């Protein structure tokens, strides 16, 4: 640390990692910050908070990589000690969550507080919005070929989507996009983590529509007295004139 350079404005800034805060100091701070937070805490806000104390003029403060390391260490500790919780990265931030082994128990606790499942129609609308955002209601309806009024209303109420602007098209319809609540609800790290849409060309190659089959199975189950899946007698693929 002996610094002979006279032009150096900050005496101790002689290494790239000019200020090293030991893990033992950082760990409880980071732990407390995440623990006390209601919503996921982003890496950048953790850094911002730490730098209030540890950033010295001209230094980079605590590098984000260090924070990630510290969180990893914390998680390893929890695991070693068989703790019932861990820090998960979800919705662009860190959040304490219970361990999946305890899911059954916590589910009992939350029995009456858990949000209702989203119905199929709303889920399809949500998928369209998530993948095609920003998107207007007319565009959604064009894909679904059915009214999206109700779905959009439900999704807005559940805070899974929000208005992100207005389209420049006729009537300037509102544009919808997904929210942080959406990421939280589906356990996504960020919106880029959405599973990739299967290419249409791929679906075309696939002559079995898996989900369609699933639907048929569902129908057979529920309409047991009324079997829907009787193959039609006539089998003319030709166009009748």
């Amino acid at each position, binding site marked *: 640390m002996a610094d002979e350079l006279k032009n150096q404005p900050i005496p101790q800034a002689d290494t790239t990692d000019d200020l090293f805060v030991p893990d033992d100091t950082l760990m409880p701070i980071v732990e407390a910050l995440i623990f006390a937070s209601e919503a996921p805490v982003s890496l950048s806000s953790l850094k911002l908070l730490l730098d209030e104390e540890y950033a010295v003029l001209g230094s980079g403060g605590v590098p984000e990589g260090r924070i990630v390391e510290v969180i990893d260490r914390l998680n390893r500790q929890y695991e070693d000690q068989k703790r019932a919780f861990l820090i*998960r990265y979800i919705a662009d931030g860190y959040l304490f969550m219970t361990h*999946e082994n305890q899911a059954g128990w916590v589910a009992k606790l939350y029995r009456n507080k858990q949000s209702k499942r989203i119905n199929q129609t709303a889920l399809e609308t949500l998928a369209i919005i998530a993948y095609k955002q920003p998107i207007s209601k007319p565009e959604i309806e064009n894909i679904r070929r059915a009214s999206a009024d109700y779905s959009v209303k439900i999704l807005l109420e559940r805070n899974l989507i929000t208005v992100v602007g207005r389209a420049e098209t006729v009537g300037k319809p509102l544009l919808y996009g997904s929210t942080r609540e959406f990421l939280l609800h589906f356990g996504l790290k960020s919106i880029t983590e959405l599973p990739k849409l299967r290419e249409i060309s791929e679906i075309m190659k696939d002559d079995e529509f898996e989900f369609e089959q699933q639907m048929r199975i569902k129908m057979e189950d529920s309409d047991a007295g*009324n079997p829907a899946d009787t193959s039609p007698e006539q089998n003319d*693929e030709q166009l*009748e004139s």
Partner: protein
Amino acid sequence: MYKVSLDHFEGPLDLLLFFIRRDEVNIYDIPIARITNEFLEYVHYIRQLDLEVASDFIYMATYLLSIKARMLLPAEPGEDGEIEDPRTELMTMLLEHSQFKEAAADLLKLENERSVFFQRLQFDAEKKMAESNTDPGLDILLENVTLFDLMLVYRKVIQNTPKVTYHEVKKISVTIEDQIKVVGEWLDRKERFAFSELFKEIQEKIVLIITFLAILEMTKLQKITLFISENLTDFYVVRRTETDEDVNGELSNYGG
């Protein structure tokens, strides 16, 4: 035709996909005529159940019919010399629909995977803040605010704002004496006029009242006579001459 439960089909495209799957139809070569007929049967059935849902299906039915019609017409080659299959758009539509159905299934899977992790119960901070009515500070309030939130808040504020009503006090300089003159002028022009006619002429309520008082005053001074209409909805003002005192019994003389 078998019955299908409405709940299973999230829209007309779902129903079409179902027909295609069930009949193991090649999606590149959809037998439009048959599918259309089946579709129409179904539409007929659901029309009786739920008109709003049915409208989406009816719309699709008309689309199918238009494809059917186009297929019956001799096709003309497009600019690139290719003959376009009228069913192409429908096929793309169905495939795109399948794409998002898959995506929805993916989301459902994610939701299930996510459901084994619990975060600490939502603190309901907003509610608590509203209850304790303390100022949460701008930082917290402005975090994650979207345009839509602002819109909602704006609307709420506007709705809850008590309407400010302005009571404008205008000084209307009108006196009973003035209005006696006015009534006199009217009676110069017309032999008699109905009180209701005043409403058409006079806008301000106060002037109307003063005019009424003027009429009463004139009656008292025995300058005019008032006739009340039979159904008691109006009265007429007539100038009183020296000679016509107590002209007839129906006359109601307020001047007495």
